[in-house]
Each structure stands twice: as C-alpha cells, then as structure tokens.
C-alpha cells in the first residue's frame, strides 16, 4: 500500500510541476525561517562550545534594590560587593565565579581597534570551559598578585600578531600592558558568559572602587553539582537576600531582589521584560513561542491547504474509482495524508538545506560575532516533527473532505 502511495505521489508531483513548485517553495521557505530561528535559539540554549555544560549553571545578572518605602528603586547588573555578600557565601553550589564585561581600545598599526575584555576570577574558567588552542588560564597566584596576564581568542591573536604565536608576547589596552598566556577559540556573541576577545584577572581592573559597590557591571555564575541541586541553590540565594541587613552596607537600601536563572529562564526574562520580577514568565514565554510558530505556519498551511483542495478536485475521478473498488475512508485519508507528508518532507529537506545556507550567510556576515552554528540532532528531530505537524495541519481537512466524497459524484468529477 505505501509503495503504491509513494509511486502515486511522485507521479502526481512530477505531472503537476507548477503546483509542486509552488507548494515546495511555500513549505521550504516557511521551514527555512523556522529552522534558522530554531537553530539560533538552540545554539543559545544548548551551545557546543565553552557553555556546553551550562545545564547545571545558574546565572545572576541583575539586582533590584529599593528603600523601605519603595520610593527609590535602583536596578542594574551586580556590584562586586553584592557578589561577595550573596554569591561567594553560598554553600550549596559546587563552585561560583564571576566576570565583568568592558569595551577597551587598543592601537594596532596606528589604528584604534575595539575589544571586548572580561575581567574574571580563577573559578570562571572552571565553569566556562574555554577551548584552549595554546597556553593556559591564569592561576590563583596570578589572580591574587594582580599580574597583568591575558588570554585572547583566535581572531584577536590574528589582529595583534597575524599568524604568529601570541604566547609570551604583550598586548596593550587601557594603557596597561598584558602578557598573553593563552589563546582560545572564539565564542559566539550570544553565549554571553563565554563571549569575549580578551580575559584578564579582576585584580588588574584599572580601578579598585568596584569592590565596595552593590550595583555595578558584574555577572555571577553558579555551578551546581547536578541539576537536582538547582532548586536548593535558588532557595539558599533567596534566603540570603531576605535575611541580610542592608543598613550594614548603606542607609539607602532596605531590600534587594535578584534571581539566579537558567539559560532558558534568562531568555524568557529578557524577552518578557521580567528581569526584576518574581516570576520569570517562562510559561508565558513558551506559550508565546509556540503560538508564534503556529501562527507563522498558519498562512503557508492555509495556502497548501487550498492547493490540496484543488488537487483533490482534480483527482475526483481517481477517488471515485478507489471508492468503487472498495477503498474504505480510512485508507483514502491515509493515502492523501501520506501524499501530503511526502510532499512536505521533500519541502522540509529543501528547507533544511536552505537554512544551512542562510546560517552560513549569517555566520560570514558578522551579524552575530563569532557565530558558528551547529545543527544538532535535536534540531533535526524537531524540524522533522514541525514538518509532520505542518503536513497534518495542511492535509487533514482536505484528506477528510476527499474521503467523504460521494462515489457517484466523484466519478462524475465534482
């Protein structure tokens, strides 16, 4: 039965070339857009690089502080003091680290060039698993003694030194000279914790004022021993915020609100604008994402649906014959659904190839710095599922309508 259906489908597709071309274009472009978006999100949530083990990492990015009357409210990235009080004191995590992002300039061959510099502690590199091509990360001793050592990524090595090795050489930014001790592979811009051009010890930060600030430009990374520890870590962090006497830091503050988020929760908070709110809006975010996918697929599905209806009317005589010779409704529904699935799968395959092309274009355009998209098996499976959903949405009603056609009228062609 299925071989017969496959043969019929391919012949029908070949015979109605214009219809096939429009249908495939419709399916392929829709799926291409979905796959590109899904690939970007997938690479953000499940990166293969330095953040590959972030499923057990919580990120604390912001703190909201207010006075007792809530008349004065401040909201910003973390200050070092906050990290010292609330993050470094946590007992449940396996380890904690932090970083601060800064834009720095450097003069190369007479031209001013900008670099992203991350000042970090020694634990950062044990959470963010940078891929070293050469050299190493700085040690605790180097951190404590404030030694000006730096790790740079591969493109930065090329910008400073061309194709020569960078290890042991010096680079200069913020009017300070750093000795390069390591070179790592570049990380995509959307992997915020791992993305940088240069990494340097926090103790070499140009000013020491950051140490007393509750609010500043820091982010903290909390590594759990396992995923099951995450709720306990969140609870400990929350408890710490509640029980702290803020007057010991400043008369201005009475309360602090901050959240330790997974990557998905962080994405939801950014999208929903709930950075400082109690609920992350994750459920709403996921619902909206699903709704977005369905709405985006609806228009081409309706288009395909109309094409399927007209295709069925063209094939009324065939339906009449099959019914006359005893085809039950279920068999006819299955046949036309399978035909639709085959058509959609071919479109899906084309969409996948087009999306690879589009992702390559995005990578080479520099739109997202150092982007290197990976098409995972998870994404391929999701694509397959979305394609099947698309086939079912666009094919179910036409197939059902076709199967209900009266055999005599079908044989007469209407």
């Amino acid at each position, binding site marked *: *039965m299925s*071989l*017969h259906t496959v*043969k*019929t489908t391919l*012949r*029908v597709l070949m*015979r109605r070339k214009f219809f096939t071309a429009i249908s495939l274009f419709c399916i392929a472009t829709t799926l291409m857009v979905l796959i590109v978006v899904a690939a970007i999100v997938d690479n953000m949530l499940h990166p293969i690089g330095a953040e590959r083990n972030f499923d057990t990492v919580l990120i604390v990015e912001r703190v909201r502080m207010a006075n007792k009357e809530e008349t004065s409210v401040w909201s910003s990235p973390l200050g070092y003091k906050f990290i010292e009080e609330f993050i470094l004191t946590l007992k449940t995590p396996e380890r904690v680290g932090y970083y601060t992002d800064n834009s720095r300039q450097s003069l190369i061959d007479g031209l001013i060039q900008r670099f992203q510099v991350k000042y970090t502690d020694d634990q950062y590199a044990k959470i963010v698993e940078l891929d070293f091509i050469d050299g190493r990360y700085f040690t605790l001793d180097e951190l404590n003694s404030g030694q000006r050592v730096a790790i740079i990524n591969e493109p930065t090595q090329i910008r400073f030194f061309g194709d020569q090795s960078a290890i042991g050489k010096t680079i200069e930014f913020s009017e300070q000279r750093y000795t390069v001790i390591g070179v790592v592979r570049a990380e995509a811009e959307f992997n915020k914790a791992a993305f940088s051009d240069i990494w340097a010890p926090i103790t070499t930060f140009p000013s020491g004022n950051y140490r007393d600030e509750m609010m500043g430009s820091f982010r903290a990374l909390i590594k759990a021993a396992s995923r099951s520890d995450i709720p306990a870590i969140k609870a400990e962090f929350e408890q710490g915020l509640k029980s702290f006497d803020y007057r010991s830091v400043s008369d201005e503050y009475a309360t602090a609100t901050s959240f330790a988020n997974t990557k998905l929760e962080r994405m939801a908070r950014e999208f929903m604008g709930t950075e400082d709110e109690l609920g992350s809006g994750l459920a709403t975010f996921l619902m909206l994402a699903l709704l977005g996918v369905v709405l985006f697929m609806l228009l081409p599905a309706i288009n395909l649906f109309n094409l399927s209806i007209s295709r069925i009317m063209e094939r009324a*005589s*065939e339906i*009449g*014959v*099959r*019914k*006359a*010779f*005893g*085809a*039950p*409704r279920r*068999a006819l529904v299955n046949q036309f659904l399978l035909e639709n699935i085959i058509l959609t799968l071919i479109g899906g395959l084309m969409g996948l190839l087009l999306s690879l092309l589009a992702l390559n274009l995005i990578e080479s355009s520099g739109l997202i710095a150092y982007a290197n998209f990976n098409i995972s098996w998870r994404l391929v499976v999701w694509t397959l599922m979305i394609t099947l959903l698309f086939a079912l949405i666009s094919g179910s009603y036409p197939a059902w309508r076709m199967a209900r056609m*009266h*055999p*005599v009228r079908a*044989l007469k062609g209407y």
Partner: protein
Amino acid sequence: MSAPAISLQQVSKVYQTDRVETTALDQINLTIPQGEFVSIMGPSGCGKSTLLNLMGLLDAPSDGDIQILGQQVAHLKEKQLATIRNLKIGFVFQSFHLVPDLSVLDNVEIPLLYRSVSSSARRQAARDALERVGLKARMSHYPTQLSGGQQQRVAIARAIVGQPAILFADEPTGNLDSQMGKEILSILNDLNQQSGTTIVMVTHDQHQAEQTGRIIRIHDGQMIH
C-alpha cells in the same frame, strides 16, 4: 438453490433539491440469478445508470430493499458496503476512469490494495488479469500511451483482478468504435461463460444487448415488461 446475485424489491430513488423532487427510479422489482449476463437499455436520463449505481452499492435507494448475493444491504455501514464492493463487485465505466499517474499494472492492482494481499501476490494477480485481456505486454505503460480499446481492456482487467462475483459495466463500449466494441463484448462474454461471473451491462446498442442473456428496459424510471 443459491441466492440470486442481485435482488431488488420496490426500489425507488428520488433526488431532492430545494424546489424540485425528481423520481429517477420508481418501485423497481428485479432479480438477477448468479451467472446471468443482463443488459439494461433505455433512453438517456431514464435511470439506467442510477439503477446500476444502486445495484453496485455506490448509491443508496430512497426506498426499497436491495440484496447482493443474499445479503441485505439496507442497514450496512459505509465501511461494510466498501468491503462488499471490494470483495464481490467489479466495475467497468464508459470513460474507463484509469488513474493517469499510475502504470497499467498499478491501475489493475487497485482493488487488491484494500485487501490483505501480499505485494507479490497482488502483482501476480494483476499480471494474470492483464494476460486474460491480452495486454500483458503493456503493463508498464501509462494509460495515455494506450488506445481507447486498450484502456477499456485495462479497466476490465482491473474489474476482474479480484475475481468478483458480479461485474457492472456502464456503457463499456460507448466511447469505442464498433470493432473495439465487439472485442470488449467478446471479453465480457468469455468472462461470463468461463468464470460464471454475473454481468450487468448498461448499453444503448441493441445489437450488443441481444448478445446477452436478457434485456431489461427502463423508461422514465420504471421497468417495461
């Protein structure tokens, strides 16, 4: 004594639209024993095809009882009717109704797709049926590559591949020249005599009708005796 192939008791068919009610068949009583070759004649629009559709279970009567091989069909569900059509009945249409996207062999296989038959047995049965109508050499052709007579022979092969007890032929020679018409009628006669298949054929051709065992005449939805 075996049950008749087809038995119609007081069968009527009325088509109803918003304003008009048209009686296509009016209280038809008809019995066709197994193995008979019957032709139905009458002017255009008299209800011949409607009668054939009712006997072939493609349409339901407005009133009356129909029995196929002794089985009452009035209260059967769509799925059960489809099973009877599949196992007991074959059709040959005036305009052949071959599926243009399928090869001759694939077209002939169609009735067996809805039975529990292995792919190889299906193909063998289709080859045998094509051999019976003298078209085995054309089995990988497509319908558009065949003449009208050849297409009708493929349609007959498709109708008999499942070895049905009853075959309905709706003006099977209507679209063919007289020579081709003769060939088709000869195949149907052979089928009736050699396999004992009951055949009910609608025709406008008096000469062809006379070659069958009995002529049933219809006029304005009623049988003329």
